[in-house]
């Protein structure tokens, strides 16, 4: 399936290559570079490129292109999903999936890639299994290893590999048994010029951090499970139980993982927690324009809106911006033409406002389009859909775990058209 993998950085250096079958020459990447050149923009490099003898399927993550070489028919999503899994694993192991991290840990990277694929077919992609096979690097361990001469490799087959629950390590032991669930909801919305909602939707995930000894069997129930319209599960969740009782029943993996992601049914009206007033205009035949944006919380929200950031991709003709903000700070990148306004917390008493003059390239025609505003925000202690966890029960183990649920609402792809 997957023949080879090349990691390429933004300047076009192939800094890592791995082959699972016969060696494929680096020159195959030339087709990729060609496509990259044509696309002009990293985001627009087609993920699938056909060359005379191979197919290249690539993803772009953290300023690195993961380019895989395929020779025969294979579902493209299979490869893409796998490459993302590889990047996730690097992230998991090294804390970041960057070129430096990969170069610094090249041997571990190679060992990981060796374990993750056999002859191009995924072998072990569960992070729990991989961590038993190849221990993640820590400073302490490398010191210990160099003294004792012990190795980074597991000597036995990870038990997960054999059991029906490959995601869980066998002997897990904690002194403090804890289970935390973060219910994170994101609002995707498009707000049009007049402030009315074109499209809004709530997407949520439950991320868990579970540190429980032994083989706990958990079940998590909601007050209002009907809210969940479309759900995707971690493989650990028993689907039958959900179908019949709307209860999440599972033996959890050890550590951090995403339990479910869900979409709230579209029938429910989405309460948009902020509003934006904006006047952005460019004068005809003059090299300047007006920019005035105010953002405020909607009254009906009990919680404070914080972490607010507004990002605006200004038209190409914009040279510079002279603005004053009543709250927070702004930066304008004249190369990328991106205005970022970091506001922080919004208090209803004093609405943050940013206004001033836009300097345009002289002689250039007036920009046709007003830029859209991308808004980010965060609301703690609130699941905007109203989803509530009812209870968490544990079976199979004797001890009493510490349980915690946290709710948070964020802006997802939240865009205001102007």
């Amino acid at each position, binding site marked *: 399936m997957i023949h080879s993998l090349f990691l390429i950085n933004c300047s076009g250096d192939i800094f890592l290559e791995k082959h699972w079958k016969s060696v494929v020459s680096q020159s195959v990447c030339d087709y990729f570079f060609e496509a990259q050149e044509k696309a002009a923009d990293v985001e627009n490099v087609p993920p699938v490129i056909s060359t005379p003898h191979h197919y290249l399927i690539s*993803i772009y993550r953290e300023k690195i292109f993961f380019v895989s070489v395929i020779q025969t028919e294979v579902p493209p999503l299979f490869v893409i999903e796998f490459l993302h899994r590889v990047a996730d694993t690097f992230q998991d192991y090294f804390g970041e999936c960057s070129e430096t991290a990969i170069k610094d840990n090249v041997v571990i990277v*190679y060992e990981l890639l060796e374990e993750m694929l056999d002859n191009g077919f*995924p072998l072990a992609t569960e992070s729990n299994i991989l961590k038993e096979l190849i221990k993640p690097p820590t400073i302490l361990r490398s010191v210990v290893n160099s003294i004792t*001469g012990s190795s980074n490799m597991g000597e036995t087959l990870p038990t997960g590999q054999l059991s029906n629950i490959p995601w869980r390590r066998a002997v897990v032991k904690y002194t403090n048994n804890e289970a935390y669930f973060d219910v994170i909801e994101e609002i995707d919305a498009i707000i049009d010029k007049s402030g009315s909602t074109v499209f809004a939707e709530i997407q949520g995930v439950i991320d868990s951090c579970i540190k429980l000894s032994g083989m706990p069997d958990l079940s998590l129930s909601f007050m209002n499970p009907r809210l969940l319209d479309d759900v995707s599960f971690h493989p650990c969740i028993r689907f039958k139980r959900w179908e019949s009782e709307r209860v999440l029943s599972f033996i959890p993996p050890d550590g951090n993982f995403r339990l479910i992601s869900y979409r709230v049914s579209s029938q429910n009206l989405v309460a948009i927690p902020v509003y934006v007033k904006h006047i952005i205009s460019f004068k005809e035949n003059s090299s300047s324009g007006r920019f005035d944006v105010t953002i405020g919380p909607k009254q009906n929200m009990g919680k404070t809106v914080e972490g607010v950031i507004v990002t605006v991709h200004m038209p190409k003709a914009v040279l510079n911006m002279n603005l004053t903000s009543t709250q927070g700070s702004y930066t304008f990148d004249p190369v990328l033409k991106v205005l970022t306004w970091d506001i922080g917390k919004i208090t209803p008493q004093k609405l943050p406002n940013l206004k001033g003059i836009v300097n345009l390239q002289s002689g250039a025609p007036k920009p046709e*389009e007003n830029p859209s505003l991308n808004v980010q925000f965060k609301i703690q202690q609130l699941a905007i859909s109203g989803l509530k966890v009812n209870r968490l029960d544990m079976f199979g183990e004797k001890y009493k775990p510490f349980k915690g649920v946290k709710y948070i609402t964020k802006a997802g792809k939240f*865009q205001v058209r102007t």
Partner: protein
Amino acid sequence: MSASPAYSEEKGGSSSLGEPEYGHDPASGGIFSSDYKRHDDLKEMLDSNKDSLKLEAMKRIVAMIARGKNASDLFPAVVKNVACKNIEVKKLVYVYLVRYAEEQQDLALLSISTFQRGLKDPNQLIRASALRVLSSIRVPIIVPIMMLAIKEAASDMSPYVRKTAAHAIPKLYSLDSDQKDQLIEVIEKLLADKTTLVAGSVVMAFEEVCPERIDLIHKNYRKLCNLLIDVEEWGQVVIINMLTRYARTQFLSPNQNESLLEENPEKAFYGSDEEDSKDDKPDAASLVKRKPYVMDPDHRLLLRNTKPLLQSRNAAVVMAVAQLYFHLAPKAEVGVIAKALVRLLRSHSEVQWVVLQNVATMSIKRRGMFEPYLKSFYIRSTDPTQIKILKLEVLTNLANETNISTILREFQTYIRSMDKDFVAATIQAIGRCATNIGKVRDTCLNGLVQLLSNRDELVVAESVVVIKKLLQMQPSQHSEIIKHMAKLTDNIQVPMARASILWLIGEYCEHVPKIAPDVLRKMAKSFTSEEDIVKLQVINLAAKLYLTNSKQSKLLTQYVLNLAKYDQNYDIRDRARFIRQLIVPTEKSGALNKYAKKLFLAQKPAPILESSFKDRDHFQLGSLSHLLNAKAVGYQELPDWPDEAPDPSVRNVEVPEWTKCTSREKRKEKVEKPFYSDSEGESGPTESADSEPESVSESESESGSSSSESGSDSGSRGEESGDQSEEEKKKKKKGKEGPRKACLESAGSDPSEEEEEQGKKGKKKKPQHEGKGGSETSWEEGSISESSSSESDSGSEAEESQSEPESKRRTTPPSSKPAPKASRKGTKEISLLDLDDFTPAPPQPASSPAIVSTSLVTDLEGLTLTDASLTPTMLSPVFSTVKTYELLHRMAGEGLSVEYYFNRQPFPPDPHMVAVQIQFSNNTESEVKNLRVSEPKLVSGMRIQEFQEIESLAPGDTANVIMGIDFCDSTQAANFQLCTHSRQFYVSIQPPVGELMAPVFMSENEFKKEQGKLTGMSEITEKLTLPDKCQSDHTIVQRVTAAANVSRVPCGADNEYRFAAKTVTSGSLVLITLEWKEGARAHLTVNSEKMVIGTMLVQDVSQALAQ
């Protein structure tokens, strides 16, 4: 931290080598140094005793590989560490080995024995990793070893090892596709595996090796469906895709009621009929016509069991289920996938891209499915352009009368985007909406006309092109628009747009009679500076005007045509010439002239604006081919629904007896050599599921079938040669009973019966392989297959055989051997002969029962006891000179049977050749004439000294000849044709490594001296444990000399044995030393320049001894 000791060591080491210039600068030994000499420090670190140094070196080497730097010159140094105790070093060596083995095949062979040992390790992780690496080394010469290892691992206890075996199958297949038949057997066996761990991997192997063998799936279909949810996610994808194809061949279209019932009642008839017969409704026939389609329960099972997977977190799994539903589910049920696909749109942009392409195709076929999610396809300014364009495509596909106004409002926003490519695509999309939905055509047209005054030229140009297409539908009402566009020619520069405008004006010049000539006048002025496509349209316009309004435009047309006549572009010159002839009447211009107007101003059909995703659904959705809209390599066509459902009972797992038999027979017919695979598969679930109903213990019947075959062979041979001359008979006997006879001759020696039998069985076995497969590979496979099945296996089999009823034992015809064991084997032979369905075995000749039964005894021994023996032990241990191999089986040779053996005599005409004695027996009724060798196909360097042609061979006669073959010190087979007056047979002779040498005599001192020269890489050592029966001097010497053509070197120490030989071709010394330590442990050392020979010899000898 860990690097510092490495560097200090390196300094010390390199200075001692007298290369201080490299040692001084530790940085120069850095990871990415490319200088070859710098690798010396790495070599030294690899040779050191400290694991930490080795590890450091390996890490640096792996870093080089990762960078794509060449590290192949370190191969010998690295490979030595393949057996390193440190698991991390070992793994890194594996990484290295897999990367470079292909380039350094000979050296790579050195590592093979380590893996072979690993395959027998009690730790499943080690077994699996040994198999993984062994199968990843792409060296063709080890194909048989791989084949064997895979077969072995396929019946391993650990599912993880079996999974690895499944992974190894495609590797072997890509290395040697000739192994397909055997691999299919393994796949069949693994498909029956009930663990989820194996399922995904084996289906992947199935897809790569034999996707066309859909029949292998029948029996496992339900199991796969039921296991699916527990299979790991990657396996799910592969299984679902495969089952989609399977279902398309086995079930009826669930949508035929709607589409086909009316036009084609017959199909419905069959569909319902099939269901009825299943439900046992007697009056099915009367209901036929109106009987609605009923889904096959297996079809339903598949749909039901895949549905939950739409909830998977893995996008590939969701997509796989989605395509399964799209291709297999009844229309009413397909809707469920939309929600899941829309969810994927929140994933990474690459995932979005792929999903949107598939949604685009689906939305053409089943628009209703995605309509509720229309807004999810709305475009954000931050989306990448390629995503925007795909979303636009989907939105356009979803547009209908009810939602068009919303969509158009959305489009209006898009048109003002900064992303011009996207704007152009939006304009196209508006055009498509306008053509598809008549209601909004005018609105769209007006909107587009407004765009004509846009400041951006690209937008205008795109609009012009789209307007042109729209206008073609109803030109008469839009002369205003045409006039407006005519004005644009002054400003617009984009050639395509200019050309479009000119075409429009020309086409509809009657609607704009005043403007058209004026436009032509302007264009004539700028003609020379226009782009080619514009020029062509100017000529077109001129021609059309000339035809409609020649008064005003005659001169202009002439002018334009004259300009075009001298244009640089020949297309334009051609066009001008052609048009002039056509429109300007002259004497020469023929009848065409009259029709010029009809030609030019014919009614042209309006273009249809349709999606580029139309008809893409003939590719399986979610596939690479679908994405590229072109067949990718290895793409399996999604078959059309069958008109008639194939028999659904094939999927029933409880099979009635007659089915078992047929399936079994079929298999036998299909597969060349079913015996070994069967016996290999004894423990597998499939085998037991459909094994023969006989009450004989199954495993025995299967394993025995091969022996019975060989037994009957030898029996028949014995019979037919019955009337041979006395001498011949003797020879034959010698061939068969050689070991025993020789044993009697060797005075004083008292080898146990068992050993003796082993010797014979080895000898027996080989001819059988040769006869059946003929090719070198089959021989190796066969022999190795025996070697690797574990000791415990053979043990258990032996036990089984002992548990045979006493009474049966008694009935055995008395054999020449008094040993109880032998007689027991003899018993078995009877039942086995009954089972034999391969050779029409002639009745046993009464005259020679002893011979036959002994030979059978040996054969059976071979199968039961010596499963663990390796190739070399096939040579009879004591007197290998008389060990014969079959070159041409009596059946294959149409009565002519040919055997050969290595007589271990020097071949006088050429000392570099190995002498092969060949014996022909004519078992036919007629004379065989002109026996000779022809057309040898030899590996380069190999030579054959042919024997003299045998003029004729009378029926029942035998003849002996000697031929010489120079094998070039390799175990490659010599392939040639054996010709008679009427036929040609392809045969091959492959020498065991032990036959590639001739004994040399040397003294102890000489031996030690030579051995001293052959150290390092040339020395291969292996530890082994001598079994009890092999602890006498005599047996050891016997076994070693049997395994190889060596002579013993006198030795002072009594726990040491030395042997010496020279390879025949190159005369390289081969020295064997066996050191007997306390207890049963021993060290075997082989010294030889020829490392490959050395390695193989070590294996052969140690296997011979280990028995």
